[in-house]
Every structure is written in C-alpha cells, then in structure tokens.
C-alpha cells in the first residue's frame, strides 16, 4: 500500500462512504431510498477529483448483510477497505475470508433500530472476541444517548472501537450529551477513535464545531478520523465532497493536526 500523504489542501484517507446500486436487495428496515446509484467507480472518481488516495467504506443498513458489492470493490481496488454488517453467528472462516478481501471491521448500524441487540449475549460476546482476534474494529453508529452502555460493553470486550459522526450528540445537549461525554472519557483507553464526519447531520454547524474542539482537546489527532460520508444519504443535493473537506479545515485549523487526522491516524487504523 503506497502511503499517500495528506497535504495542507488535501486529505489522504476518507474513512466513511457508501457505495451501492439501486438494484441491490434492500432489507425490510430500510430508512432511506437512495435517489441514484453510488457506484464504486463514481466514488473512486470523487476521491481522485479531490486528491484523496485511500478510503474505507461503511456498510449501509438499508442493504442488510448484502456486503457483496463492497467486497467486490475491496477485492478489486487495494486503496479501499470496508466494514460489513454480519450476523453474530457468522462462521469464523467466513470472517477470515472477508479479512483477506479487505474487510477491516463490523458495523453496528444501530441508529435506526428501536431495539438494539444485547452485546452480553453469548453469540455477541463470541463475535466480539472474533473481531478482536482478527484485529478488526467495531464501527458503531447510534444516537448519543444510547452510546454509553454500548461503549462500556465494547470496552470490556477489548475491541477497537470507531464512533461515527461525532457520536451524534442529542439535540439540545451538544457537548454535554452523555454519549459525547462518554466518548471523551473512553478515548483515553487508546482503542477508541471518533469520526469528524457528517457535521451536516448534527443540529447546527456550531454544535459540530464545538464537538470538534472538545475532541481535539481530549482525544487529539491520533484518535480522530475524517470521513466524507459520500454520497451524503438524504442530503444528496445539499452537500458536496469539497464541502466535507472544507468542514474539516474549519474544525481543525491547524494544518499539521489535520494532516494527521486525514492521513497517518487513519492509515494506522485501517491500512496497517
């Protein structure tokens, strides 16, 4: 893997994006109906146009555990990695085969779930152990208020943990949201990372900026990641790729810190 350096104007690793085609099988729980294909080729073109070298794709809940399209992409393009959605009972040989194909973690896409799975259940404890054995990470997306108990269990399981989109602080609470506060405490364990991404999904740009400032202070660039969230599900017409690069500049004014966030930290976590 050639290491592509972040420069003051570009980022090296986009740690959050989705690829899919509209004809893929959708699960019953689909919360969003995408308006158009977001193909691997289109995404690679977006990366190239913005000078981004490598990327990590995120499994999307709307396609359930049909991870096949993303795995096709990581097989074909060594600059890509992906997370997957799997059943807790997935055979360890299948997980290993996925790892060999460029899978780096499992996504717990819980934000749209009314009832979240019990991580203390034996099958989840076994899955989490397998994730740890594979040196994968758990990629958690949930509402801020629900993060603390899940984070506590994942911390106990000893897995690496990546939190999406600033931890999605609850509206009106900002940096005081218990989930956000739990993140600030947990990053000290050295196995937790937070994505500065999808700021437009937060209640306001001001809240995103405040969260970013707190995270820089408590977690530092070695625990922070940047992601575009391409193709900006449900915000397809409102956000551009360049906007997401600009956002990071606003959140992290220091070029050296930004280069670490957009480069070295992500390389070490996903590509090492």
């Amino acid at each position, binding site marked *: 893997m050639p290491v592509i350096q972040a420069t003051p104007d570009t980022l090296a690793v986009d740690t959050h994006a989705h690829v899919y085609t509209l004809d*893929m*099988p*959708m699960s019953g729980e689909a919360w969003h109906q995408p308006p158009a294909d977001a193909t691997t080729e289109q995404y690679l073109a977006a990366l190239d146009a913005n000078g981004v070298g490598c990327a990590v794709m995120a499994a999307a809940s709307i396609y*359930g*555990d*049909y991870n*096949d399209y993303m*795995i096709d992409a990581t097989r074909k393009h060594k600059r890509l990695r992906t997370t997957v959605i799997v059943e807790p009972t997935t055979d360890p040989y299948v997980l290993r*085969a996925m790892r060999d194909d460029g899978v780096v973690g499992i996504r717990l896409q819980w934000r749209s779930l009314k009832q979240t799975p019990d991580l203390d259940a034996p099958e989840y404890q076994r899955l989490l152990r397998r994730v740890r054995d594979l040196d994968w990470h758990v990629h958690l997306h949930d509402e801020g208020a629900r993060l603390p108990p899940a984070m506590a269990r994942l911390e106990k399981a000893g897995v690496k943990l990546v939190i999406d989109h600033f931890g999605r602080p609850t509206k009106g609470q900002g940096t005081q949201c218990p989930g956000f506060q739990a993140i600030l405490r947990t990053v000290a364990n050295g196995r937790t990372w937070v994505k500065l991404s999808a700021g437009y999904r937060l209640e306001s740009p001001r809240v995103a900026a405040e969260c970013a400032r707190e995270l820089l202070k408590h977690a530092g660039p070695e625990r922070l990641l940047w992601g575009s969230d391409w193709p900006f599900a449900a915000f397809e017409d409102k956000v551009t790729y360049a906007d997401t690069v600009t956002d990071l500049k606003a959140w992290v004014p220091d070029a050296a810190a930004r280069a670490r966030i957009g480069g070295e930290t992500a390389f070490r976590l996903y590509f090492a």
Partner: protein
Amino acid sequence: MESAGESETKVVDALVVDAHAHVFAGDMPVVANPRHNPDYAFTPEQYLAVMDAHGVQFAVLAAGSPWADYNDYMIEALRRYPRLRGTVIVDPSVERYTLEAMARDRVVGVRLSFITMKEMPDLGTFAWRRFLRRLRDLNWHVHLHIDGPRLPLVLPHFEAAGVKLVLDHYGRPDPAKGIACEGFLAMLRAIERGNTWVKVSAGYRLGEERVAAYGRELLRTVGAQRLLWASDCPFVGDEDATTYRRTMETVDAWMPDETTRRAVFGENALKLYFS
C-alpha cells in the same frame, strides 16, 4: 437401466450435452419422507460410461431432493471430472464464500425443488432476495422443479431478481390442460424475455406423446434457443420405464432439422452451463 456399450449407432451425431442426470451412493443420508429413496448406487463412473456409450460429451448433474443439501457426493464428482457441471441444494442463508467455493468446484446453479413442497417459501423476503441476487452475481442459474400450475406464483420473483431460470421437464404443465395450461403459457412468455430455459426431458414420466406436443409447441412459439435436452438418468423411481437411448429418440422425433437438433442436444447447454 441399460448397460453401457449397448448402442451401436448414435441417435445424434454432434456435440451432445445431457442437462440433467443424478449420481448417488446407496448409503447417503436421506431426508424424512423422501420423494424417492433409491436402494442402489449410481456412481459418476457408471454415469460417465453411459455418456460415452451414447456419444454424450458433457453433462450437468442435478441435486436430488432425497438428499437435500448433502451435495457432497456430487461435488466430489464435479471436482474429479471436468466434463461435468452441477446444481446444488442450499439454504438461502448460505454465505457468498461458500457459493464461491462451490463455483470453483464447477457448481453452476441452485436447484429449488418446489414440487415436493405443499407451501412454497416467500421469495419476497430479504433472505430470498439476497440469495437470488448472489446467484445472479455468480452468473449461476436457478434450476426450478415445480408443477406447472404453480409456476406463475413464483416466476415474477425470479424475473425481478434478474437471475437465469431453468425449468425442469417441459415446465410440467397440468396434463389435463397441456399447452393451454397457464403455467406453460407463463413459461413461454418468460422464455421470450430471454432469461428462462426449459429442459425437454422426463418424457417417460409425463407421457411421450404428450411431451412431443409440448416440444412442438415450444418450437413453434419460442424457437429452439432456450430448449435443453436432458436424460434424467438413471430415471429414479421409474428405472425400467425407459432407456437412455430412448430419452434421446423421443426428443429427436420432433426435431425438424439438423440446426435445431444441434441446438437442443448440445449447443444451447454448452453456452448456458459451460461458458
């Protein structure tokens, strides 16, 4: 079952592919209440000898419902003999990686034996849509054995999934209605759309005069390009009802010309299963 080496002259003097045959050991695990339960073995070696005796170059082994997803014996045969391809019975939750390993072992499709089911599964669930999509991704086909009248109930799901579909035994129309059976008509329309094939086989089960009428109607309406000759050897459950040679002759009887004969007996199957 006639013994190998019995035929002196070839019925079809061209490339021949048998699109449907079974191999099994006599001691394989059988499901509860099997449709058939042969008490003998029909090994790949026995079958290959039958093929050779009848000038058949290639063949597709069909998973048999008595053994459900114990495809293992058949897959061993596929690994050993490059002249063979096979279809398997698997649960819709099967992992992509398992299917890919099977593909490397020359599996080319999945057999759905709905004919034995009182209640057919709901093909609209995510599990089934995901499964059918994976088959399409692999360029496999669905090998469907169903009674004709129920075909219209499931056909839209396969067509929506965009997966290739191969129907067994003339689509098994309702014998009372024959070519006017709704299932048969639905099959003709699906064949015209280009992603459905049908085996002209098992005449000994359906009635040889009847299937000649089905065959002629297929040629008249949709042409020869989606028709596949198959023996259904070793005629499980009705072993003495026909011979391998006779399964060829009953189809050969309604072939109007050499081009059609070559397509139905070999070329179509070679394209579908071996390329």
